[in-house]
């Protein structure tokens, strides 16, 4: 349905730089005293302006959590019920998950299940003062209404305006690209060089690293590694375990689309500003709003001015767009997640040190893949 993604238009921004320079030169000639910028705190993301929206989130923030993985704030989440179910964005999760509440408590969370289609994850926490979220009764998505993203603080994380009522964000098609060249002198998948601007270069992988594991697959040889990688599509986020010197290291890698993402002007422009979500495509029937937020601000509730929870932020999609799953759709997915029917197969994005349980009812532990043996030398 979307031609533009597969065949992007030659967008008219080639004059961006020259035009800017020319504009500066032009404007230099009239010697007029400079006007003062609008106070940063009064701008859209500004502290004072966000504070004006405090009454909107005063209740919902008690049902909102910050999801941390170790020392990294990765996402937001919402408390679903009194049993301790927490809903969040799946693909940002890593090991050692904890939830921070608005009362400043922090508790460990267990991963229960993931919905790959909408990138949702169900967590389990133990906390004695849970405030379950109250969703709006019906879909209230509209165009040109304030939308407010609640966090755990008094002021919301972000504000913006609803832009598109319902939109399909198609999956990214094409060949996935990691961006490494391998050393052919050894059978083991050893990195000989890393292409600039590739997913490998921004993940932290280095020349000389020997890849031991790709997601849950142990890869002893180059061929195994290539076949393990070929299971993934562009936009997928997975972990890679490497041997660097005598240390094991884990990296999260988001695969690019070959030839497109790294150098495409539109992709570059979209990355200008807040950090985009790794998984930001493949959503059907989401609402789009213009709130400027980072990838770790996703997974939490989106409200209208009346304080009704109209959706769950699921991705930062580009410079001008953030996506939220509307409530009706969300309720279906939650039911599915809580049913235990969803595959509990290791989500590719979570490092396997995490304690896994197979489903919500009988909490059975899953055997984790053995870490690969250290090679000699």
């Amino acid at each position, binding site marked *: 349905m979307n031609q533009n993604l597969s065949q992007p238009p030659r967008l008219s921004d080639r004059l961006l*730089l020259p035009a*800017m320079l020319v504009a500066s030169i032009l404007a230099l000639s009239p010697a007029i005293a400079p006007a003062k910028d609008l106070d940063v705190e009064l701008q*859209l993301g500004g502290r004072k302006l966000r504070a004006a929206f405090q009454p909107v989130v005063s209740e919902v923030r008690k049902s909102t959590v910050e999801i941390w993985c170790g020392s990294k704030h990765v996402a937001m989440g919402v408390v679903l019920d009194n049993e301790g179910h927490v809903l969040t964005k799946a693909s940002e999760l890593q090991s050692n998950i904890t939830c921070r509440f608005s009362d400043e408590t922090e508790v460990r969370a267990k991963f229960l299940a993931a919905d790959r289609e909408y990138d949702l994850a169900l967590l389990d926490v133990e906390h004695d003062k849970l405030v379950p979220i109250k969703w709006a009764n019906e879909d209230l998505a509209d165009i040109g209404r304030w939308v407010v993203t609640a966090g755990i603080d008094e002021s919301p994380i972000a504000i913006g305006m609803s832009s598109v009522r319902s939109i399909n964000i198609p999956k990214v098609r094409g060949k996935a690209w990691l961006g490494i060249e391998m050393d052919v002198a050894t059978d083991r998948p050893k990195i000989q060089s890393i292409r600039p601007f590739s997913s490998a270069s*921004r993940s932290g992988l280095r020349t000389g690293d020997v890849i031991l594991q790709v997601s849950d697959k142990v890869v002893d040889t180059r061929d195994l590694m290539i076949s393990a990688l070929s299971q993934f599509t562009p936009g997928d986020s997975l972990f890679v375990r490497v041997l660097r010197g005598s240390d094991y290291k884990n990296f999260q890698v988001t695969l690019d689309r070959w030839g497109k993402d790294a150098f495409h002007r539109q992709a570059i*422009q979209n990355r200008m500003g807040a950090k985009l979500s790794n998984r930001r495509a493949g959503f059907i029937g989401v609402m789009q709003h*213009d709130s400027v937020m980072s990838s770790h601000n996703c997974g939490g509730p989106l409200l209208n001015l009346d304080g009704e929870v109209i959706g769950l932020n699921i991705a930062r999609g580009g410079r001008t767009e953030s996506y939220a799953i509307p409530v009706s759709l969300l309720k279906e997915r939650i039911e599915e997640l809580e049913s235990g029917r969803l595959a509990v197969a290791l989500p590719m994005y979570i490092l396997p040190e995490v304690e896994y349980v197979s489903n919500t009812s009988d909490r059975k532990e899953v055997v984790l893949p053995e870490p690969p043996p250290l090679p000699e030398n």
Partner: protein
Amino acid sequence: MAGKVSQRISIRQLIQLALLPALIVSWSALAPALQKEAKSTESEPASVLNKELPESIEDLKALEDQVQKHRKSMMNATVAVVIGNSQGSGVVISKDGYILTAAHVIGRRGQAANVWFPDGTLARAETLGTDHETDAGILRIVEEGEWPFCAMAVPDSYKVGDWCIATGHPGGRREGRPPVIRIGRINNVTPAMIRTDATLVGGDSGGPLFDLKGRVIGINSRIGVSTSWNLHVPVGIYEENWESLSSPAGFLGVGGDPYNRDGPCTITSVSGNSPAFKAGVRVRDVIKKFDDKPIKNFRELVELVSQYAPNKAIEVEIVRNNKTIKLEVTLARKDPYRGIR
């Protein structure tokens, strides 16, 4: 990743952007105009629109109501502009189909363009003038009709801190997706640009920036790295240069070899009854100068003629049989849909 690419761009842009604050216009000079404006719109909740900070949920509701009031007309007047492989946005500002856009969306005068309205209506248009220095450009729908439009605001009727709405087609036109509304505040103004935190991206170029009364105050043009660096061409630029920006392309009526870059500009055909024919230009003439500007090849002539408005008398210097002759031509109006020049 592209992180590095964008960083490189960002540093360059930052340097350029760093130049900007030094040039920025004082608001105080514009203040009297604003007061006039406020008086003339008593029915609008001027108090909320002029507040530095919304003080209550009621204030925020009033802002939202204001957006709702003009939402439909703002969206209906926002069009996607397609010229060949190039895509951008635009806004209709008159019933008879004048469209403001960015110069870098339309390139040059006298081209055929397709204009898509949000309801799926496709209208044929022709590009009019461009000013690549300010990035202002205009096109006009050539079909008969009464087009949905939003009027231009009085130039300088806005100030730093005002709320605004940007629309356009980020990423290009997508089937089934109406123009995308974004809110922002004016972060700064100069005579040559409005800077807002209403976020833009490629494809938005040429789309409108509205005030909360639904009037066009600027045209989306370019961005910096930060989401609060979105630059728009002020509507005043269009107003000031209306005559040159809105005139159609001139038409001479000669043919030549566009692939012969080495020149000379030898005429291989002359359209009957064309301005060139009337002026006495004949096949095998070599055009040396047009309006005293030297012409190296046919392509240069085409580029140059398209910058001239019709009905202007222009001196053309030709060489015929080794003799230099000066002729006076009066350009006609080019019709891009006839495909002649």
